[in-house]
């Protein structure tokens, strides 16, 4: 027979006010196996904990039930106390008589009765508890950064500075991301390239950082501390070790039809190209869909002109498999497709552009060398209309319900950039609301209105009609209910941000979840903002939700701190409440292996004695390091060979029985 101790906490009047502690004690004393019942005002206090520790030692208790607040609150505290008194911490059970009893019920009699039932259930479960010992797993001292934008670069630099190796995987040929495309940053109007490019160089030259550009995540296996990631390095067709980045090949390339991704299609690029002059690494890549050599077999000019013999047409994708302790996801965002927004002739008219195209148009390194000119005819515009919330805060299926967060600020920035260079251009901004919380943000937007004379109009644009070489913008001023028609030369659309199209696919590979908008979900919106539900995988930047650069960098450093904390541990303790297989009962159907979301169950062949003979038998095998303890397999198992430690079938049934008494 077990020797169970029951400890009833008053929690001041939180419990004692609604639950009759004496009655609970009396009822507990009558439960078979209970040898010691005590109460105290605050069981979690040092005095309370000592009460438990002493009772364990003096009364030789082998199970402890604490009737107190939620186990989410103090289970860890009481387990630690039990451990220090020499009792296996998994022999402690909590009866939640505060959050789930005294706080939700007013009738003292009913609440007391329920508290007794909950104590009875906890004792019934504790009676069947077994000693559990968590295993230890090592941690690979290397981190993986998925995405090479500002979030990825910042996280990688922080982790590398802490002394751990970091690999950055970037899908495009260069790191830098969206920030590299931006001309100036709000609210300081400092040059984006001037603050980003040094960081890009730092990342590429840091001894602890290794770049995999033009690469993608192929597969992810393993678990916290021991991820095994297969990286697909796409064929660059250029040997990065031989290439000196002289750029002769990109100049000579006869195919100049492809649209430059970096310049948002406002400039053409060759089939062999370096995305932008400050690209890291400064190694060109051949776009095989555009290259004449790949399309027709003729050409190969770049190979002939390359002074270092770096062109390799026969390169193939390579797969690299590497072990990592932690993974940080920083894949960023995109702007939504504006095909469905027929009221703005974005797809038809070259003078209707997105905000990101505007960045390239004002950038000194952009297609117009920083001169703000109309893409249609190269003339200087006289009137420019900005439209905010194109697809943001839009409940219809073509848009996004959320606020894209950055548009109010960058539109104010764009308006100011125009006014600074060309004060004579008239600038109009159509907005639903101006949302500018943030340090020095509201002041910035007000400056656009008060100092630069930007015309802010509350209201939406109904339609934009191209007429002659003008764009007739029909809108409504919601404050005066006046209909406005502006004969604009250019219209800039603040298109909504969206999660990357392949976010879900990557999420599936990593076993992390995405929300309704495909942004990755954090473990807790307030208290665990950079962690995911999968241990060892962290989030940074706009892949988790729309964010500006300061927020992204802050979150990146936070994710780095979490990753460093994990890598620094060296060893991890895993959850001992994992599934176990009764090999004698297991029929080897392996239905459990298909159900397990962590691929923790595999098959193994064991030798068993059957009627005096040794025969081979296939059974399921649980990898305890991979198993997260959901217990789904136990239900899948028809033979009942699988059970979950800490939540065994007989334990839960005992709880049911005790509650139903």
């Amino acid at each position: 027979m077990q020797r169970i101790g029951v400890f009833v906490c008053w929690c001041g009047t939180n419990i004692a006010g609604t639950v009759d502690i004496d009655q609970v004690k009396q009822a507990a004393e009558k439960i078979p196996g209970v040898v010691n019942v005590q109460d105290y005002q605050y069981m979690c206090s040092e005095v309370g904990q000592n009460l438990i520790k002493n009772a364990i030692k003096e009364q030789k208790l082998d199970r402890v039930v604490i009737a107190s607040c939620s186990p989410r609150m103090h289970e860890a505290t009481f387990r630690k106390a039990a451990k220090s008194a020499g009792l296996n911490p998994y022999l402690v059970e909590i009866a939640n008589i505060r959050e789930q009893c005294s706080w939700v019920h007013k009738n003292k009699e009913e609440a007391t009765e329920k508290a007794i039932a909950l104590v009875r259930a906890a004792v019934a479960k504790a009676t069947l508890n077994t000693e559990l010992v968590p295993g230890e797993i090592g941690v690979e001292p290397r981190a993986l950064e998925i995405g090479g934008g500002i979030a990825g670069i910042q996280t990688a630099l922080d982790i590398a500075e802490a002394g751990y190796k970091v690999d950055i995987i970037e899908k495009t040929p260069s790191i830098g991301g969206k920030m590299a495309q931006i001309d100036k940053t709000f609210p300081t109007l400092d040059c984006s390239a001037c603050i980003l490019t040094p960081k890009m160089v730092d990342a590429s030259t840091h001894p602890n950082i290794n770049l995999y550009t033009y690469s993608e995540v192929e597969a992810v296996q393993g678990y916290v501390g021991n991820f095994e990631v297969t990286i697909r390095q796409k064929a660059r067709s250029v040997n990065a070790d031989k290439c000196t980045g002289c750029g002769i090949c990109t100049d000579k390339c006869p195919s100049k039809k492809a649209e430059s991704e970096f310049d948002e299609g406002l400039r053409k690029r060759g089939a062999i190209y370096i995305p932008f002059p400050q690209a890291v690494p400064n190694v060109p890549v051949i776009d095989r869909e555009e290259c004449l050599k790949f399309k027709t077999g003729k050409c190969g000019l770049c190979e002939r002109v390359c002074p270092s013999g770096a062109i390799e047409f026969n390169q193939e994708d390579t797969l690299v498999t590497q072990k990592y302790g932690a993974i940080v996801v920083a894949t960023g965002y995109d702007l939504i497709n504006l095909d469905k927004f027929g009221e703005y002739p974005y797809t038809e008219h070259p003078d209707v552009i997105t905000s990101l195209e505007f960045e390239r148009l004002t950038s000194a390194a952009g297609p117009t060398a920083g001169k703000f000119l109309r893409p249609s005819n190269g003339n200087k515009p006289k009137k420019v209309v900005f439209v905010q919330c194109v697809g943001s805060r839009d409940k219809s299926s073509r848009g996004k319900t959320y606020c894209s967060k950055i548009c109010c600020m960058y539109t104010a920035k764009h308006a100011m950039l125009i006014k600074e260079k060309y004060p004579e251009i008239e600038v109009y901004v159509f907005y639903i609301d101006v949302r500018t919380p943030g340090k020095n943000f509201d002041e910035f937007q007000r400056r656009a209105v008060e100092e630069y004379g930007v015309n802010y109009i509350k209201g939406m644009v109904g339609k934009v009609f191209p007429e002659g070489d003008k764009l007739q913008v029909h809108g409504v001023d919601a404050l005066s209910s006046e209909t406005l028609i502006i004969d604009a030369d250019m219209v800039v659309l603040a298109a909504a941000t969206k999660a990357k199209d392949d976010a879900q696919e990557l999420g599936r590979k990593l076993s992390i979840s995405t929300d309704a908008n495909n942004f990755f979900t954090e473990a807790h919106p307030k208290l665990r903002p950079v962690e995911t539900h999968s241990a060892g995988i962290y989030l940074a930047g706009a892949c988790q939700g729309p964010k500006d650069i300061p927020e992204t960098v802050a979150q990146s450093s936070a994710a780095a701190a979490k990753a460093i904390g994990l890598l620094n541990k060296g060893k991890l303790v895993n959850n001992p409440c994992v599934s176990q297989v009764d090999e004698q009962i297991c029929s080897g159907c392996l239905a459990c292996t298909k159900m397990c979301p962590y691929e923790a169950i595999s098959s193994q062949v064991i030798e068993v004695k059957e009627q005096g003979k040794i025969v081979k038998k296939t059974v399921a095998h649980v990898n305890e390091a991979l198993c997260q303890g959901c217990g789904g397999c136990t239900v899948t198992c028809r033979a009942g060979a699988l059970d979950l430690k800490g939540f065994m079938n007989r334990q839960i049934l005992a709880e049911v029985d005790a509650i139903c008494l």
Partner: protein
Amino acid sequence: MSLENKQISSENTSNFKPLIVAFCCNWCSYAGADLAGTSRLNYPANVKIIKVPCSCRVNPNFVLRAFQRGADGVVIAGCHPGDCHYTSGNYYTRRRFTLMKNLLEYVGLEPERFKVDWISAGEGNKFAAVMNEALEQVHKLGPNRKLRDARWKR
């Protein structure tokens, strides 16, 4: 009026104290129940909660056992579809207990006695509402006599 009917009516009217067993997943619904507590929301004391790591840990067997032991209603609560802490556990719950509900109906138990719902850690309100609703249903139906084992008459 037959003897059986008399029993039912007496149980229905006077001192019928229903019992509802709620299986709550550790990450969402149990936390939601805690939030109902911290928000001091009220729901009847007849609801008693058993914590499981994930709603997919609940074996249909547990539900049958609860009914057999005299529970008048059973609720299984998990994370919202798509939000499972274990990625896909609650999808299994959804499928398994759709079948289970059919089975219970087939053996003659009122389907209203059994319910699967999704309650997140932030939905203390919903937790209280779901429990109140379940209890209201059971009150309408009266005691579970169909699956209750005679020995376990409360």
